[in-house]
């Protein structure tokens, strides 16, 4: 799809109305149904939190929040409930894009615009607008950064700590990572999967550090589990490598700033996607244009930018770091 690179500054944790004049003026009342997977880790928690905060900003928006769940069966029923309730729009971060396509299409057919966030539906008719992070791009960014650091050493040992291995998004990230590394003649020497939790990160990393006595670089997919990863590194007393994170939590950015851990960089995966979704949903329902765009209507697809945060530019990104 077409990609529009929005400056991340536009999305603040405490979003201030920065969009084009008039868009934030109260319009007709909008009831938005919101459904996302279980907030079982910080990034997902931030997704929900920023969505709720954004909705609260607008007196004309009422947010209906479905129970966060990792069960597509339950999530489908929530969308069905929204359709029954005849909400004005649905912002949906599906646990599995393909599995929710069906019901999203049903909503669209019922005249309810669906804003698809983060995990893409399998049919273009299922969403009015789609906001995507860039999982493959994330892997590419992380891989490219590591290449820059280690490109001259073809024997360098690179390790990767995945999130939940069985998720397609994990596969995308790993693919991007591998592709970028291959570009400079490196490969992934060790790969472990955590489960997006701190305990999982700690366990996986402890075993990983044990298995690999000498490592040059680690990419950790997720800054949430990164807390555990760092704890394991500290426990093991290892510091011969540098580490790249993923998602961009506040905590990690502070570490990058302070330079007190092997963490040198992290790849942003915006946790404000759902907040954007809320804004878009409101605009769609109120028939408004998006920000500075000249063309009429909200764009169909928006893919967010995945920049690499390092000590050099961390100041710039601190405000959008999410609290894990």
């Amino acid at each position, binding site marked *: 799809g077409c990609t529009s690179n929005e400056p991340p500054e536009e999305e603040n944790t405490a979003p201030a109305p920065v969009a084009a004049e008039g868009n934030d003026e109260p319009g007709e009342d909008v009831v938005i149904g919101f459904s996302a997977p279980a907030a079982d880790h910080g990034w997902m928690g931030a997704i929900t939190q920023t969505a709720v905060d954004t909705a609260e900003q607008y007196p004309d928006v009422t947010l209906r929040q479905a129970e966060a769940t990792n069960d597509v069966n339950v999530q489908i029923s929530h969308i069905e409930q929204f359709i029954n309730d005849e909400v004005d729009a649905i912002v949906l971060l599906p646990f599995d894009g393909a599995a929710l396509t069906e019901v999203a299409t049903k909503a669209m057919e019922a005249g309810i615009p669906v804003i698809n966030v983060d995990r893409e539906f399998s049919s273009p008719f299922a969403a009015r607008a789609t906001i995507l992070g860039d999982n493959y791009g994330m892997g590419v960014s992380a891989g490219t950064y590591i290449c820059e650091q280690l490109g001259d050493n073809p024997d360098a040992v690179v390790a990767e700590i995945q999130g939940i291995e069985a998720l*397609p998004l994990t596969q995308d990230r790993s693919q991007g990572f591998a592709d970028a590394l291959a570009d400079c003649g490196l490969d992934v020497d060790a790969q472990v999967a955590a489960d997006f939790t701190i305990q999982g990160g700690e366990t996986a990393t402890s075993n990983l550090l044990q298995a690999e006595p000498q490592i040059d670089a680690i990419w950790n997919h997720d800054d949430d589990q990164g807390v555990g990863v760092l704890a394991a590194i500290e426990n093991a007393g290892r510091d011969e490598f540098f580490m790249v994170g993923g998602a961009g939590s506040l905590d990690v950015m502070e570490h990058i700033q302070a330079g007190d851990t092997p963490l040198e960089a992290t790849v942003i995966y915006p946790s404000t996607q759902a907040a954007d979704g809320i804004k878009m949903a409101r605009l769609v329902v109120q028939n408004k244009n998006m920000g500075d765009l000249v063309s009429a209507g909200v764009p169909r697809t928006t893919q967010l930018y995945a920049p690499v945060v390092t000590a050099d530019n961390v100041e710039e990104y601190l405000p959008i770091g999410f609290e894990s």
Partner: protein
Amino acid sequence: MSGTTAAPPADAPSDAPRRSGWLSGPAVRNLGLVIALALICVAGVITGGERFADIDNVLTILRLASVTGVLAIGMTFVITSGGIDLSVGSVLGLTTVWATTVATQTMAEDIHWVLMVFTALVVGTAAGLVNGALIAYGRVVPFIATLAMLAAARGLAEMISDRQTQQVDVAGFTDFFRADWIGVPVLVWIFALVSVAGWVLLNRTTFGRRTVAIGGNEEASRLAGIKVKRHTLYLYGLAGLAAGIGGVMMLGRTTAGTSTNGVLYELDVIAAVVVGGTLLVGGRGTIVGTVLGVLIFNTLNNIFVINNMSTSAQNVAKGLIIVVAVLIQQRFANRSRST
């Protein structure tokens, strides 16, 4: 010869307190559940009004309940026999993956979509039979055997699907399962059918009687000539079949085969069965109770969403309500049987 034949026993066998099936003992036990469900519905109407007491909403609840409901019917048999099956959710995931492989779908496209259904049912039953064989003939305790299957089936599903979600492209299939009959979704019909079949099987057939007997006293059943091992094999096969049916329904609902389908269903399903009044130690099982248990959990979920509760608050509320529902149900269960 004995001289006792003279005086006939004073009290001839009067079966007075017996009423027909539904209204006797078990029904009284279920009364508590009905009351709990009714209270929950009242709460739904009070807080949700029209939005809750709406035919579409009721159908939404039923549609949601149908997948776990079917699993719970199978689980009721296993638990009644004194066993447990932790693998149902994971086997469900495996069946959805297997039924949506390119090979299966191509074949289904060429021949008939029923092939996909068939594949799912065969895979589910096979996994169940492996459980059953391990338990009956390998004498592995059910908890461990099915826990192993939980891990293995999930892993297998991931390998087969290569961790990609597989979309159902066979139109006939999705059309069928998406449809309504007489205003009621096919999925709900299936749930109803499986429930009735389960009730009949448990209460009206020798298979059901054997199941209860084995759960009540395995040794006594064995000594009475029941083939306990073979029956155990069948029981887990049945639970696997239910998982297969659940898998087909899941596919109908999501049109997506993925190894993450059914994650953690085992807990939901067992909870519904146990809240329904089936004893975890075996020997007593109730299909009606199970259906009520499934409905209670799913109605709760629906009301939470109607009331816009945060997930955290939902969890706390769910914990409290489960306990209260069980306490209500117990009040009645205790009244219905002697000390």
